[in-house]
Each structure stands twice: as C-alpha cells, then as structure tokens.
C-alpha cells in the first residue's frame, strides 16, 4: 500500500518529466490501435458491400474464379441464357436473373479522361438487374434502355462532375462503346472505390461479352422459408453436375472478402511493423527517462533504504511508476488511435478511396491489445533502471554528491557489443557471398539484427570517440561554450548512446532502403541501356492489357520501324522426360521482340525461338529439367490445344528484365489457341524509322489519344517513370518511418530537458559567473546537435552497410549495380543536425529562463 502511495506521489510529482515518455507510449499505441481500427473498418465496409451486392445464390461458370491473376482474353467467362431458365425451375427459387459483369474495362468521359478509381479499385461494367437494387438506389434519371444509354454510380459522377446526358465511352476487349448517361445510382452502403457503369442487358452482352444471349452469372433469390444452403442444393441438382460454381450469399461474400482480405492484411501488417519500430525506439526513451529519474532520486532512494525499505520495495516502487505511465499512455493512445484511424480514412478519401465514419469499427480486442502492449513495453523498458534503483545503497543518502554520473562505459559492454557487431558483420558478409538468394536472406536478416543490437550495446563506447571527433571538427570553433557542450555530451555516455541509438534505428532503415531503392533504379537503367533496343514502350498505367482496338490504332502510327506485341500466356508443360510442370507463364511476342529486348543465349539463336513451333527457355529451367536445344516440350495452352514445341534457344538468366522468360511467337500461339481466347497484349514496343524518333513519338501519342489508360514512353520517360515509382514507394516508407523518427526526436528533447533539470545548479553557477543566456542556449543546442549527429552517423553507416549487403545478395536477382544515393545520405546527415537544433529549442529556452538565484541556492 505504501509502495503504491509513494509511487503515485512520485509519478505525480514528476509528471512533467514523464510527459515525453508518455507521448512516446501514446504515439506507439495510437499507431497500433489506429491501424487495427482502420483495417477493421475497411473489413466492415467490404463486408457490408459484399453482403449487399451478392444474391442469395449465385451461379457462375466453373473456371471464372481463381483465374484472376492469369492473363486473359479480356472477355469474361460466360454461359448460355438457357442456364437462367433452368435454374429458375429449381425448387424454392423465387426469382432468377441473368447478369453480365466485366472488370476488364476502362471508362472515359467525353474529354477522354479516365473516370475509373485512382485508388486501385476496379472499374466494373454490367447490366442493371433487380439484384443491384438490393445495394443501390437510382437517385436521378432512369435505368439504361437501349444501346445508347448508360447509368453510372453516384460517387464517380460526383468525383468527375458527370451529369445526365454526358457521354461515356466504355473501352472493352471487344471494342469501344459510347453511350449517354441516362441515370445515376447511389450505393446504400459505402462504396470504397469502385467505378460502376450499367447498361441494359442486351447492350452489356454485346459490348462486354461480344455475343448476345450469354451471361456471366445468375442471381437467384430464395422463396420464403427456403434457406440459401437448401436453395444451393436444389439449383445444383437442376443444373449439369460440376459445370457451374454455385455459391450461397455467404460463400460469395467470403470469397470476395478473401481476395480483398489478403491485400488488407499486407497493409495491416506492414503498418503494424512500423508501429513496432516506433515502440522499439520508444523503449530507449523510457529507459532514459527512468534511468535519469532514478539517478536524480539517488539520495531519496538511499534514505528509503536507510530507514528500512527493502531492495524489492524500491524496485517495485519504480516499476509501479512505469505501470502508471504505461496505463496513462495507453489509455490516451487508444483514444488517439481511433482519431488516427479517422484521419487515415480522410486521407484515403484524398486518394480516391471512400470510407464512411459510420462504419468505424472498434473491436474489443483493439483497446486490449493497445493497453497490454503499452503497459508491457513500458514496464519492460523500466525494468533495468528499476533494478539499478534497487541496488542504490543506503549510504547514498549520506553522500553529498547530487547526481553521480554512471561512470565510463564498461569494458564488458564494449566486448559484448563488439562480439555482437562482429557476428552480425560476419552474417552480412556471408549473405553478400551467398549463391542462392534464399540462403543469403537468412544471413542478411540475422546480420541486420545482430549488428543493430551490437551497435546499441556498443553505442555508449562509440559515443565518446565519435563525440570527440565531432567536437574537434564542429564545436571547437565555438570556444568554451563548444567545449562545455562536448563535455556535457560525454559525461554520460550511456545516456548519449541510448538517445543516439533511438535515432539510429530509424535512420538506419532510411539509409538501407534508399541504397536499395537507388540501386534498383541504377540497375534497371543500366540494364535498359544495355539490352533494350526498342525506342518506345506502350503500357497501361494500371497494369491493364492493351485492347485489340488500341493495338490496331498503334499499328497505324507513322514513322515507325516496327511494332512488337507481347502477350502473357499460361500453359502446362511436359518435358521429354515425362515430367509435367503446371501453370507456367510464357511470353508470346512478335519476332521483332528479339531486337527490342536483347538477351544473351547459352545455346541457340533467340530469333530461331520465334520460328514455327519453336520456343526458348531460360537456363535455370533448362538446367533443372535437363533440357537443351532441340528437345521438344509438350505445351498445353490454357483455353487451347496442346502443342509440341522445339526448344530453339536457351537464354541466360542474369538480368532483371524478363528473368526466366520463355519466348514463342504469337503466330505459333495462334495455331493452338482459338482467336477469341488469345490473350490481350500486355505491353507493346515500337522502334522509330531511322532519324524520325520525334515524329514517331508524336504519332504514337496521337494514336493513343482516345485511350488515356495507356502511355507511350521513350527510354528517357521510362527511366523517369521507374525512378518516380521507386521514389514514391520510398517516400511512403519514409513517411511511415517518420513516426519512429519523431519518437527518437522526442527522445533527444527528453534527454536534454531532463539534463537541464539535473544540471540546474551548474547552469545557475555559469549564469552567475557571467554566461549569457544566448551562450547557455547555444551550449545546449550544440550538445543536442552532437547527440543527433552521433545517432545519424551510426544509423547511416549501419543502414548503408545493410543496403550494400542487400544489393550484393539481390545481384543474383538482377540488382547488379550498387548505387549509394549520396545526396540523400548527406541530406539526412545535415538534416539530423537541424533535428538536433529543433530538439533543443524548448530545453534551451527553459534553461535560459531559469532563475539564477533559485538555481544556485543551496538546498
């Protein structure tokens, strides 16, 4: 009881000193809870959507599902209209309705601007059915009638300012179709970001499937008293066995959820990972806070021990304070997390993903996870300082010394740290020498963790050396103020080390990723220069295939040497040895592709692979299956027949482009796959007629004017795009790492603020003998800068080491060029100095305002 009381009093008495630790706990817990609430809310949104959009029972063609990732002809699988009437006759069916729906479409407005979602959501075109009325209301106009009318969803209409009477062009694999908006329909639940266009049934069939009288699925509703499962069984017996997928509402929703869920999970765990890093950094802050509180309270603790408190009691009283801090921080953190989730939802709507706060979902697990995590981490972090408090001898009460320095970093620490770092460095070295990426990655992971821990342990030892070097370079110029700043940074290496280490973690990750990122760009650029012969690349910005009509339009472009189509196709392959490999991806291209992308061969000529009934394989595949030039493979094309193809070339798989690709010509493919089953062009290449690059570029651009979803890029554009994409990805990761860096900056502020309190009398003395406020503030700022630079140096060094190792390892996967982004590294280093200045603002201000008399007044 008394322990709790003292802890409470101490906690309240030092609440100012606890404030920054509490902020660290709040931020970390908030990030975790925010992520959980956000992803739960997304799940709820999708659950509601799927529940609302799926019929009681849905019938669809067998192979329609699961083929989502494979290249397709762009025409969805369909079934004859007779299935609808047969299903309708099943027992317990109230209504049966044929539906058409396709996601392989692009919808543009009259100015040829894509109205599809920017958030990565799908654009869906289909027929307007009664089933759609379950989830949508027509808010203005009327449902589409006849081939010239279309209806669009209200969110898209809002976003792109579309009105009734506006023209919409739907670009599908079968062709383009222009219609006027006859109506606008709004979702009753939240539509997270799909663009939906409706036609009448006949138009949808003709324009999306290329044939009337066919449907992509049948929506059935159950008669009163018939359960979905019973209805499913009845329908199954009414239709041909095994020819169709029949799913209840729940099954459809579950399947949909699964496909969205994996994306949501990736996002959730990535964000939780970053929250974890912030927690890790927060631990340093908490350790520092409690160490300093214990040091400042040494005499008090000594007195408690002298009058009979046991070690355990002292220990427990410190831990109780940690629990209080954890509880307060976590409670606030959970609240802040919900706020953060709302903020994230607003942010998402900025990039086109609509989420409604009405769907905000806070599961009971969220606050529990937040609280447990916050409290456990805080208590763990406070454990070491608490133990140290327990070790304070009763004699400390009698000693005059105010706050003893924790002395020099011990040799033991140096040895342990160096051993760990050495082991980590060995791991990294082994990783860089690995022959197989999978083996190496294990060493890389181990090396990263060991060097990180090693650096944290050895940090205080390094601090003395590094700080001395910095001050020789930077601080000496500032005379005695610089010297005092140096001494202050050095007087407690453990504290400086821990504060710097917190910053080190975030910056190490930044440095590592920036090295990998710029190496990626450099490697790709290098490879482009070496092997890409094509002048222009045509690609969709969302990864959609190039429709036949767009391809035809490109073919008409002028000043062109040649144009190459490239298609992906799937096939099951059987080797001469009788071994079958399922679902192999092949690249079918025009023979000019051999010029557009130069590949070295181990055997044979690549151009021969485009011959009749010929193909090429990669050297790894060839080695694995014992294949060589002249061997024949049985290739069973998806949706096509089986071909016997002769291996005419074996390519050397050492680059990043088309690594492991198997080539054949499109004309070979066309012999074995029916025309309407031929997959769409994934990407196209073009080469200008000699000396007419400019004109060709313009002509290609003009050819695609009606297709905003495709982009023509020359090599320079392509490199730029690549660089931008990598840059965007890195910026996102930097943004998420920002949290950890903010916590680390709080750590610097915290250390300085507590140091200022601890050095009150020193500061008073210096002020009394003539140190001006400005000099005092400068001294504190310089100490801060030195600590920040120390963290930055360690972090950047460590991160570059990690990045370089990762590059060496990934060289096996085509990441051949190591490029250290010096401008970024230097900017981060210089930026850290400013971080140091910024962190010192408040502590320096407060030190400057300190009352000289109070500061020097004897106790």
């Amino acid at each position, binding site marked *: 009881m008394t322990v709790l009381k003292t802890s409470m009093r101490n906690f309240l008495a030092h609440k100012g000193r606890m404030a920054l630790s509490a902020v660290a706990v709040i931020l970390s817990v908030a990030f975790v809870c925010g992520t959980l609430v956000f992803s739960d809310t997304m799940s709820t949104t999708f659950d509601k959507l799927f529940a609302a959009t799926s019929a009681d029972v849905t019938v669809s063609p067998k192979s329609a599902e699961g083929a989502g990732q494979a290249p397709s002809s762009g025409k969805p699988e369909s079934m004859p209209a007779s299935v609808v009437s047969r299903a309708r006759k099943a027992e317990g069916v109230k209504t049966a309705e044929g539906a058409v729906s396709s996601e392989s479409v692009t919808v543009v407005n009259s100015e040829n601007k894509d109205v599809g979602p920017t958030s990565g959501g799908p654009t869906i075109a289909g027929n307007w059915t009664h089933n759609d009325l379950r989830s949508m209301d027509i808010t203005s106009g009327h449902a589409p009638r006849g081939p010239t009318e279309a209806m669009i969803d209200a969110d898209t209409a809002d976003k792109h300012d579309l009105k009734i009477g506006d023209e919409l062009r739907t670009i599908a694999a079968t062709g383009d179709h222009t219609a006027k908006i006859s109506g606008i329909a709004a979702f009753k639940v939240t539509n997270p970001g799909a663009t939906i266009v409706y036609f009448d049934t006949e138009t949808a069939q003709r324009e999306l499937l290329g044939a009337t009288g066919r449907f992509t699925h049948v929506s059935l509703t159950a008669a009163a008293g018939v359960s979905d499962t019973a209805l499913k069984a009845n329908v199954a017996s009414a239709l041909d066995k095994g020819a169709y997928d029949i799913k209840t509402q729940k099954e459809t929703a579950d399947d949909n959820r699964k496909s969205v869920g994996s994306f949501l999970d990736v996002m959730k765990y990535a964000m939780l990972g970053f929250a974890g890093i912030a927690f890790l950094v927060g631990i340093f802050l908490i350790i520092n806070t409690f160490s300093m509180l214990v040091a400042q309270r040494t005499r008090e603790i000594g007195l408690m021990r002298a009058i009979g408190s046991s070690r355990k009691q002292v220990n427990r009283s410190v831990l109780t304070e940690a629990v209080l801090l954890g509880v307060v921080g976590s409670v606030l953190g959970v609240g802040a997390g919900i706020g953060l989730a709302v903020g994230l939802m607003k942010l998402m709507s900025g990039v086109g993903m609509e989420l409604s706060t009405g769907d905000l979902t806070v599961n009971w697990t969220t606050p529990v996870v937040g609280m447990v995590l916050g409290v456990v981490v805080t208590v763990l972090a406070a454990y070491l300082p608490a133990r140290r408090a327990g070790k304070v001898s009763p004699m400390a009460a009698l000693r005059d010394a105010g706050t003893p320095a924790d002395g020099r970093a011990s040799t033991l620490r140096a040895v342990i740290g160096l051993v760990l770092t050495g082991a980590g460095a060995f791991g990294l070295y082994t990783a860089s020498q690995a022959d197989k990426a999978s083996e190496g990655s294990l060493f890389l992971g181990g090396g990263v963790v060991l060097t990180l821990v090693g650096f944290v342990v050895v940090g205080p030892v390094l601090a003395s050396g590094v700080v001395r070097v910095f001050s020789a370079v930077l601080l000496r110029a500032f005379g005695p103020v610089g010297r005092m700043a140096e*001494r202050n940074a050095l007087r407690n290496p453990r504290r400086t080390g821990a504060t710097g280490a917190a910053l080190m973690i975030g910056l190490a990750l930044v440095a590592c990723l920036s090295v990998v990122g710029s190496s990626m760009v450099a490697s790709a650029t290098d490879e482009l220069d070496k092997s890409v012969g094509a002048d222009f690349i045509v690609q969709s910005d969302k990864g959609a295939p190039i429709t036949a009509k767009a391809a035809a339009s490109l073919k008409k472009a002028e000043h062109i040497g040649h144009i190459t189509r490239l298609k992906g196709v799937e096939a099951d392959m059987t080797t001469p040895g009788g071994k079958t490999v399922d679902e192999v991806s092949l690249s079918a291209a025009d023979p000019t592709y051999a010029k557009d992308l130069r590949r070295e061969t181990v055997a044979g000529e690549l151009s021969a692979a485009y011959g009749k009934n010929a193909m090429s394989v990669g050297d790894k595949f060839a080695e694995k299956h014992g294949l060589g030039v002249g061997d024949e493979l049985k290739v069973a094309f998806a949706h096509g027949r089986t071909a016997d193809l002769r291996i005419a070339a074996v390519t050397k798989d050492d680059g990043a482009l088309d690594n492991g690709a198997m080539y054949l010509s499109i004309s070979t493919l066309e012999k074995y796959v029916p025309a309407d089953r031929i997959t769409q062009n994934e990407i196209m290449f073009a080469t200008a007629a000699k000396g007419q690059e400019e004109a060709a570029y313009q002509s290609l651009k003009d050819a695609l004017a009606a297709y905003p979803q495709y982009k023509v890029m020359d090599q320079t554009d392509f490199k730029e795009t690549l660089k931008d994409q990598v840059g965007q990805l890195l910026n996102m990761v930097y943004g998420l790492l920002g949290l950890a860096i903010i916590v680390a900056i709080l750590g610097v502020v915290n250390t300085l603020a507590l140091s200022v309190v601890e050095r009150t009398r020193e500061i008073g*003395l210096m002020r009394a003998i*003539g140190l001006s*406020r400005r000099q005092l503030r400068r001294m504190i700022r310089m100490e801060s800068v030195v600590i920040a630079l120390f963290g930055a140096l360690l972090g950047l060094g460590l991160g570059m080491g990690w990045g370089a190792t990762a590059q060496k390892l990934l060289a096996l996967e085509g990441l051949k060029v190591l490029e250290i982004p010096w401008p970024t590294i230097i900017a981060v280093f210089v930026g850290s100095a400013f971080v140091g200045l910024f962190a010192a603002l408040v502590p320096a201000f407060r030190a400057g305002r300190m009352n000289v008399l109070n500061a020097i007044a004897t106790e």
Partner: protein
Amino acid sequence: MAARARQVVKAYGSGETRVVALDHIDVDIARGQFTAIMGPSGSGKSTLMHCLAGLDTVSSGQIHLDETEITGLKDKKLTQLRRDRIGFIFQAFNLLPTLNAIENITLPMDIAGRKPDRGWLDQVVETVGLAGRLKHRPTELSGGQQQRVAVARALASRPEIIFGDEPTGNLDSRAGAEVLGFLRRSVTELGQTIVMVTHDPVAASYADRVLYLADGRIVDEMHHPTADQVLDRMKSFDARGRTS
C-alpha cells in the same frame, strides 16, 4: 567607493503576506577593503549580497557598482557586468564537474572571449597553492582544494569586487583558515575588494569591517574586530532574539 546601496528595499509578496527582507538599507563598500556581513538567519544578509552582486533585483532604491547603476539593468547587461567586473565564491558547488581546475579558473574569461593575463594567472595559482593540481577534475579534489580553485577563479579575472557567500561554510577549520588567509592576502597585498556573507565569527575576524544586519536593517558595524568581539556581538543578538 567600490559599491554603494541607497535606500534599498527588497520585499516578497504583497498585502498581508508581504515580507520585507531589506528595509531601506544604505551601504558603502570601500575599495580595497574586506567587508563581512553578519546577522542571524533571516536577517537579509544573503539577500543584500545577492542584490549588491546583481544576482537579484531590488523592490526600490539604487545600487551602484563603481559609477554604474546596476538597479534596472537588463539581464544581458547584468550578465556582462557579473562576467567582467564581479567575482563569486559560493558555499558549495562552485565548480563545473566537467571542467578541470585550470579550465574552471579561466572560465569567466573564456566565456567573455578574453585571454587570461598569463603572469597574473600564474601568480594567483601560485598563491592559492594549486600548481600541481591544475589538470584535476573537481571530483578529484578535496573540499578545501575545490574552494581554493573557486577563490582562484574569482581572483583570476581581476574583478572590481568579489562576493563570497559563506565561502568557508562547508570546510573544516583548517581548510577554512587557508581559504580566508588567501582572501585576506588578496585584499592586503593585491588591493582586492571583497564582500563576504558569513555567520562564523572566526571568518568575520579576517575582515576589515563587519556589518551586522537584523530584520533587514544594518544595526551595527565594527572595524578590525577579533573573533571574540564578533562572537560577543552575535551573542547579544541571540539574547535579544530570545527576549523579544
């Protein structure tokens, strides 16, 4: 005059809780003299010293250091004044733990960006007997040695006036006598002006002049007293304190 105070009032709080620490005090501190300020606890002796030294502000009245009026000066000017023209010796915690002895001694001049006068510095160091310990950190010095470093620091920049706040309060009598001896000699031999607050009659007996404060007023003064005379005078305070 090295310093003078006219009608200085220092009051804390207001209304009924108003406490007057200094009550219209007039003081003149003569140049080249060793002045001790004595008085019972709460008499205002430390407050008077803090005000004279520009560490504390006054409620009313004027204080001059030489010809400069320091009452009403802004912090920046006051800091400069303390740095360039005043020396301090506190009871404890006189030295920065991160700096060694010589660095502590030259600190005020370093802060000001002035070069110490080498010859003078050597003489001061010699006088206080620290020649062998200049590279030591404060924690490696005894209490007496630390106070001697503090004295050396106060002397080194040749301030117009040195203020001591119980400079021997934390020392045993031998170490205390040593420090007081240095202070005395610096007045006699070097013409230094020193003002020292103390409650120790023996320390006061080193002074040329002793001022007695009670209830914020100067109630008495003595010239060239012996320790016994001071003690007797103090006893009378105690007696009065007990009877009133």
